[in-house]
């Protein structure tokens, strides 16, 4: 397995270079270093000299991909792309255009993102699986029918609506929880309850329907009939046998997103004032801060690859027939 993981990690290097190159190209097609300088220097009294000085100070005065004035390997290395990319593979992200250390920001913001994303993931998974199994248990009854209707209704509502409705009813009208904010430690509990609740409810519709489909497929298989024939109760059949065998597709969806929980959620963090990585990324895009955008895309790609590897590993754990070679 170690060799497999190592090989997959090595495969990741060209993928990450490609992602980095693509991000770089896309960003600089839309924004020139001059645009970035103007945005940073503000709208007033910006002179061409000031723009040049800003570019020199921030290293944006170099050619983008090929330095024709340099000789030898410096033609490739003395470029904006190389100088901004090489260090990232050692997870040295440098500084944003506002002068703040990106690595420091990521470390600081991961906690708040996880504080929301992790409970949403765990509680959401439990709630969705339980709800899906109950619908399967009551399949072909009015409870199943109304359960599916409820899921479709929940799926059809915009995520933003859940947030606004949650804030309006729970925080504003009934005064039960703070509308927004964040604090570390136990004091932060009151701030994360509402976003977690809203996110879990918002995810019930799609999650439960998907799991219900998986479980319905499983429940028609021979081993289920055998289990019932042995005299096991329906609850035991569902929660012990069907759930275990339905884990492979569930893991496919769940484990792959596990590392991405670090990246946070854009809308939730923004509305609830959570200082996480989701809002960091969108702020950087709005501010045309290439250093931060590039770092976040790189990190997102890396975590996605890690997620895929974890998924493969988890397959071998839940299904003894799968072997990693």
């Amino acid at each position: 397995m170690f060799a497999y993981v190592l090989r997959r990690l090595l495969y990741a290097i060209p993928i990450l270079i490609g992602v980095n190159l693509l991000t770089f190209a896309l960003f600089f097609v839309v924004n020139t270093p001059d645009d970035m300088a103007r945005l940073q220097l503000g709208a007033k009294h910006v002179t061409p000299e000031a723009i040049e000085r800003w570019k020199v100070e921030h290293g944006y005065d170099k050619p983008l991909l090929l330095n024709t004035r340099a000789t030898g390997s410096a033609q490739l290395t003395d470029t904006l792309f190389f100088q901004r990319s090489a260090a990232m593979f050692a997870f040295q992200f440098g500084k944003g255009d506002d002068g703040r250390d990106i690595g420091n920001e990521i470390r600081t913001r991961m906690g708040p993102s996880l504080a929301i994303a992790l409970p949403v993931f765990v509680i959401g998974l439990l709630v969705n699986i339980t709800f899906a199994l109950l619908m399967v248990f009551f399949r072909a009854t009015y409870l199943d029918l109304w359960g599916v209707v409820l899921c479709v209704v929940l799926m059809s509502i915009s995520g933003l609506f859940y947030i606004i409705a949650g804030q309006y009813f729970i925080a504003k009208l009934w005064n039960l929880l703070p509308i927004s904010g964040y604090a570390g430690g136990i004091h932060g509990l009151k701030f994360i309850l509402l976003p977690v609740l809203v996110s879990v409810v918002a995810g019930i519709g799609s999650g439960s329907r998907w799991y219900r489909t998986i479980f319905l497929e499983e429940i028609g298989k021979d081993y289920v009939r055998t289990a019932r024939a042995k005299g096991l109760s329906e609850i035991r059949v569902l929660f012990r046998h069907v759930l275990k065998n339905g884990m492979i597709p569930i893991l496919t969806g769940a484990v792959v997103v596990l590392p991405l929980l670090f990246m946070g959620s854009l809308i939730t963090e923004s509305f609830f004032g959570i200082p996480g990585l989701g809002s960091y990324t969108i702020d950087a895009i709005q501010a045309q801060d290439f250093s931060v955008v590039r770092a976040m895309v790189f990190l997102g790609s890396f975590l996605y690859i890690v997620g895929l590897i974890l998924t493969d590993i988890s397959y071998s754990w839940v299904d003894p027939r799968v072997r990693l070679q």
Partner: protein
Amino acid sequence: MLGIGLGLMAGCSDSWNNPYPDADAHANVLYSAFSERPKHLDPARSYSSNEAEFTGQIYEPPLQYHFLKRPYTLIPLTAEAVPKPRYFNAAGQPLADNAPATAIAESVYEIRIRPGIRYQPHPAFARDATGRFLYHALDMAALKDKTQISDFPQTGTRELVAADYVYEIKRLANPRLSSPIFGLMSEHIVGLKALGDMLEKASRAHPGTELNLNDFPLAGAEVVDRYTYRIRIKGKYPQFIYWLAMPFFAPVPWEADAFYAQSGMADRNLTLDWQPVGTGAYYLSENDPNRRMVLTKNPYYHGETYPEDGDAADRQAGLLADAGKPLPFVDKAVFSLEKETIPYWSKFLQGYYDSSGISSDSFDQAVQFSAGGDPRLTDSMREKGIHLVTAVAASIWYVGFNMLDPVVGGQGEDRRKLRQAISIAFDYDEFISIFLNGRGIPAQGPIPPGLFGYVDGVAGLNPYVYEAHGGKIVRHPIEMARKLLAEAGYPNGRNAKTGEPLVLYFDTMASGPDTKSRLDWMKKQLDKLNVQLVVRGTDYNRFQDKMRKGNAQLFEWGWNADYPDPENFFFLLYGPNKKVTTGGENAANYDNPEFNRLFERMKDMDNGPERQQVINAMLEIVRRDAPWIFAYYPKSFGLRHDWVHNVKPNLMANNTLKYRRIDPDLRAARRAEWNRPVLWPIMLLAGGVIAIIAPAVVAWRRRERTTA
């Protein structure tokens, strides 16, 4: 999950939705919010209004604006007096105060600061018993656990000296700081450009080394004695005095630069750009721009008292109730990051923010207009004791014509009439009513109200767009616009020679929910003249690019005053500031020699009847030439709770936090009254869950029995 959380909160809090610690309920703390984290807090770099909200309280330039007086009046802050410039000719001989500007080679401002002013507590000043700095030679091991300024156990202070002001002026030229006003100031301060070049060379020669600015002389800023410094300005530049009220000219102690320059500091975000060091009424005690920023009363703050000289309206509004009392009143100000308007507004209504703006979403909930068109609060707001504060901003929005454009630009009579016709067709009274909820005043020229040169009422109307009817200002009828359009060579919106319809292009970077309806409104305005308007939407970068290259035809732009002087608006139309040729702020590329001549005269004049006369002549020229459609002066509407006192909009001053006073006990009582938890929904929810689960359990048991 909700139940457990609520249960925990019920045990430890009176108001379950209180985002602040209960212990602070009666504290003398002001609560506010910021929607965007500040980019820079270094006084040499910071230029945005959201940054000035912090830097204005922390840094103290030598001058400030009087809190109550209007028109805006400069008074000393750390200076002993507002300096009067002395003038010298090219031979260095002194000139009289009324010497012609052409004879003046240099203006000298000598500023004496008050002794005894001290900096906020900061580790950069901390010394040991032998007088050596405690934290100026830190290695990486010593910095290991340091992530914020409060992690340094020892702090110190020192007296403010004139050299700190000179040091900051030199910092404007430091290429590593990229000060936004360096370009402008290098045209005015003697030797600043040369210093910038020198520092740039030194910066390139020693890329990793901090530049010690004390080693580089600046001819235009020198220390006279411990408390006096002198600034030399090229020629006459009367507006320079206003810059002395901005944080760009606030003192920075060299110790702060030396402290933050140490290796490892920047990696921990410990920089002067994020951790300011000033002498102001407050210092930044907590700086987490991702969550909240806290300003705490500076224990070393020099004595200043609440102003005693206001007018009758100020007295009537209770703004002189605290006259003569020592400042600041509030112990602490907590600013929380609130990116979305809905939570901000809801928290304001719950009493968790002391003041708020009014977004378009909540405008109807907060404000209604009387039959006379005056804004007033709705009943629900008044019941809560909320007060409305309005002010006309020292700003203007305009639609510019690119004067280099072959269709709408140029000084020919036909083009002028075309622009005048379009100016009449754009009914900005309607625009203000529809899109701004009445928060604006139709503009009659480039100078907004409150600035010298603005003439109120019928006497100040733009005769090319408006006319007076029964003492009221009304727009010319659309027939006049059609007539002008015909005289311009486009009868009924068609080219008289070719018969082609007139098509104009409007470049905009506007985005947002209102954009489409706004742009449709603009098209509708020109439909009145049978002129087609094609909207070319673009992003910020492309828009700026078009403006620099002069590729736009019509465009929308705005300007906020840097200082309360008409020069700061007229320079937007001054020929040598054309954007296309010089990259200046004259986006319309307007260039009228007579206007330019008058501008050069007006900018050096003192306020008075003679200057007003010149301004009137300039207004007449730009109104006739119509390089802009003067759209509107925006009006700001703000709300405050009745426990907040001493609120008077001051659109020039940034340091008004020190005047605010709050009544924390009243606030605590109101919060408790407004935020009682409503528990029946929880009961209902629990009942609903039982109602759903019970039949399911029954069905399950029945099925189990059947299976068995």
